[in-house]
């Protein structure tokens, strides 16, 4: 076990736990307005203070974690479900028109930063968490397709794959039974990284109003609300920002830690 892995797992679980607990318990109702108690700095009653409507920031952060995690997780799911089969197919049919078609198609998608996809989708269908998920998800597809293809290509040259072919297994079966399990580690690590990028992207999109819409709490929107009040209530901007940083840092450390842990070569090199 390495330090990155432990610290990353601890930070990530903390955020995940906050999100899960928020379904059954938050210190206050996250949507309850309490104008007389507005803009309180952190104190014994409101651990993270209150916002301009007197809503409890701690409860909002907990519920906001749900939005961030849900958006980023589904977006990674979209990227994996569509990208991995593409990468596997392209690798299995290396050099064919299908390989060329899949990878050039992915190159085009790769030229659209997730923000640009979000702008395009929002311009047509309006803003919302679902459209943010789709935008980040589409951005993830070529990432997984490329990683899968790259890793699978070298596997296809290996002898155990040749053995599987000789035993009469088809391309699809070899991809599923032999290639996929051998690239899984890599994909899990990349999944963690895309997850953290997804959290950042969701925060950015909801900050500019292209993500989750009120009343759904989201960290990015909390920051957008805080912007005009940052001079007299800095905790409104500090706390959601720290929440984002802790989550992204945790996931990045977890990704680094997993990579080192899952890759025997690095483990040996470190020892």
């Amino acid at each position, binding site marked *: 076990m390495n330090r990155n892995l432990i610290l990353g797992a601890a930070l990530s679980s903390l955020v995940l736990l906050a999100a899960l607990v928020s379904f059954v318990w938050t210190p206050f109702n996250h949507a309850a307005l309490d104008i007389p108690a507005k803009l309180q700095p952190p104190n014994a009653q409101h651990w993270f203070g209150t916002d301009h409507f007197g809503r409890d920031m701690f409860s909002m952060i907990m519920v906001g974690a749900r939005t961030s995690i849900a958006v980023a997780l589904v977006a990674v799911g979209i990227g994996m479900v569509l990208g991995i089969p593409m990468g596997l197919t392209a690798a299995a049919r290396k050099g064919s028109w299908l390989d060329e078609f899949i990878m050039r198609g992915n190159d085009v998608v790769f030229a659209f*930063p997730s923000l640009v996809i979000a702008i395009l989708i929002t311009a047509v269908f309006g803003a919302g968490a679902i459209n943010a998920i789709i935008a980040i998800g589409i951005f993830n597809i070529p990432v997984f397709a490329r990683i899968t293809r790259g890793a699978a290509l070298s596997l296809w040259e290996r002898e155990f794959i040749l053995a599987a072919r000789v035993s009469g297994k088809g391309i699809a079966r070899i991809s599923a039974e032999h290639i996929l399990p051998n690239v899984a580690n890599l994909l899990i690590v990349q999944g963690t990284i895309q997850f953290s990028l997804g959290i950042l992207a969701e925060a950015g999109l909801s900050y500019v109003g292209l993500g989750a819409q009120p009343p759904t709490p989201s960290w990015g929107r909390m920051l957008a609300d805080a912007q005009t009040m940052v001079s007299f209530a800095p905790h409104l901007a500090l706390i959601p*920002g720290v929440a984002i940083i802790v989550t992204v840092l945790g996931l990045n450390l977890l990704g680094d830690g997993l990579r080192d842990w899952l890759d025997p070569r690095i483990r040996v090199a470190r020892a």
Partner: protein
Amino acid sequence: MLRYALKRLLSLTLSLAVASVVIFAVIEVAPGDPASFMLGVNAQADTLAALRAELGLDVSKVERYFNWVGGMLVGDFGTSYTYRTPVSQMIADRLWVSLPLALYALTLSTLIAFPAGIYAAARRGKPGDVAVMGATQLGIAVPNFWFAMMLVLVFAINLRWFNAGGFAGWEDGVWTGLHSLTLPAIALALPQAAILARVMRSALLDILAEDFMRTARAKGLSRRQALWRHGVRNALIPVLTIIGLQFSFLLAGSIIIEQVFYLPGLGRLVFQAISARDLIVVESVVMLLVFAVIMVNFLVDLAYAAVDPRLRSRT
């Protein structure tokens, strides 16, 4: 090299063509007709028809696509539905903010990342390296728009060194313009610098393990001399690639940062256009950003192939 360049050029053209079809198709799905949106529900049928003709909406979709693409090729991006001014003019005005901002941020990120990455690589495993790597890990995790808000809080509101937002323009001199872009550029540069410093470090560590580095030391060069004369120069190749790729991300990233500082750049333009349903502006700005990404990738590929001949044979 020429063969490789031509092949890449063909794939560049193809990518641009596909991207333009995708963008056009997505925008076409948008419900509602811009002309009736502009004139309101009580518009007369003949006024509506006249406006549709004026905006070029009265022809088939295929024809409109080719009009749009053909127009862009000669710098005509159409006419804004809301402002009735040429879109190309609007974009050009805004580019005078967004482009310098992206370049400024790129310069800053390079200036921060190079020394940090080289320092960390030279002290691999020592406290200095651990500190720099820890800082970059944090830099990657910080959302740039949040960092921007913190910069405003400290340097604009408390210390009053900069304005909290707005753009002074270039009329009063380059310095005034740059001054109002400084905080946005720092905010934009930080996460990129963190990534770049890590790339610089790992590229340099790869080079330091090469035989020619040992030869350089054996020739009698000190560690420092070998690092600077042979190490850094060779590590620059992968680093330059990342810098190229970062530029397009900076251009897109500036869209969010412009919101924090109320800068009249491409980002503001595109968000105003979204709320006004000025889809032709959205379409053109998105196409321009995608063009920038594809173009920069193409140039990076070419530069890479020029430096490293082995890459030319690879497809």
